């Protein structure tokens, strides 16, 4: 059987990649993609724990289902905001949208 730490380390690598992307990308849609990557890494951890914990109550899988539902809502609203930004600023690069920055 694959050790649990393998899954946790894979989840950590994917989460860190998502953090790096969310902090460095200029395109707002790419930032949303990085956030989806982070959410996926977290649900991988939840499902791994649901598999490896001794009692089979599957709370981890239930949590993963809720993460997927909330990620869907987040993507819809986030992309609507990006479209609104594009309509107002003619760009989706977040470092050019600095109207409220001092």
């Amino acid at each position, binding site marked *: 059987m694959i050790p649990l730490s393998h899954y946790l380390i894979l989840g950590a690598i994917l989460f860190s990649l998502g953090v790096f992307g969310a902090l460095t990308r200029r395109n707002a849609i790419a930032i949303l993609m990085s956030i989806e990557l982070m959410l996926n890494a977290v649900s991988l951890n939840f499902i791994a724990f649901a598999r490896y914990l001794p009692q089979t109550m599957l709370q981890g899988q239930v949590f993963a*289902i809720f993460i997927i539902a909330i990620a869907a809502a987040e993507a819809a609203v986030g992309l609507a905001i990006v479209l609104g930004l594009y309509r107002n600023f003619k760009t989706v690069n977040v470092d050019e949208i600095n109207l409220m920055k001092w």
Partner: protein
Amino acid sequence: MTIQLGIFYILAVFTVWAAAVVVLGKNIVRAAVALIFTFCGMAALYVLLDAEFLAAVQVLIYVGGITILLLFAIMLTSRISSATARVINDQVVLSAIAAAGILVGLIYAAMRGIPALSGPPRLPETTPFLGRALLTTYALPFEVASILLLAGMVGAIILARKE
């Protein structure tokens, strides 16, 4: 068992490679396509973890829904002239330090903090259990999630609509 481990390593390398293309790729459309591969690799890992229902949901919602939505948004917003523009902002070094710190901390916790759990040899079929749990123990979060989805849908329509 070694076959399982080999499959895990192949899937892990594939998923991390696709995720790296998502994060570091210059072309935004290519990054979105790489995101599809990342989600598919994740779904295969879910199957490896005896979560078949979640693997199917992952493919249906992420690959079939969210990625298509992202591609639509990319097509609606990207300018042709921006293909050669910078994709990375000025805080690369700080961000790399932050991400590496998170990575080291999480790997340290995974290696040291978690006892070696082994779990049952094979989970029983999980889909009926999940359905029952969602409608009994987790009925309230289930309903709240449906209201959240409704609110998100209405909000997205209102935000994206032309005046």
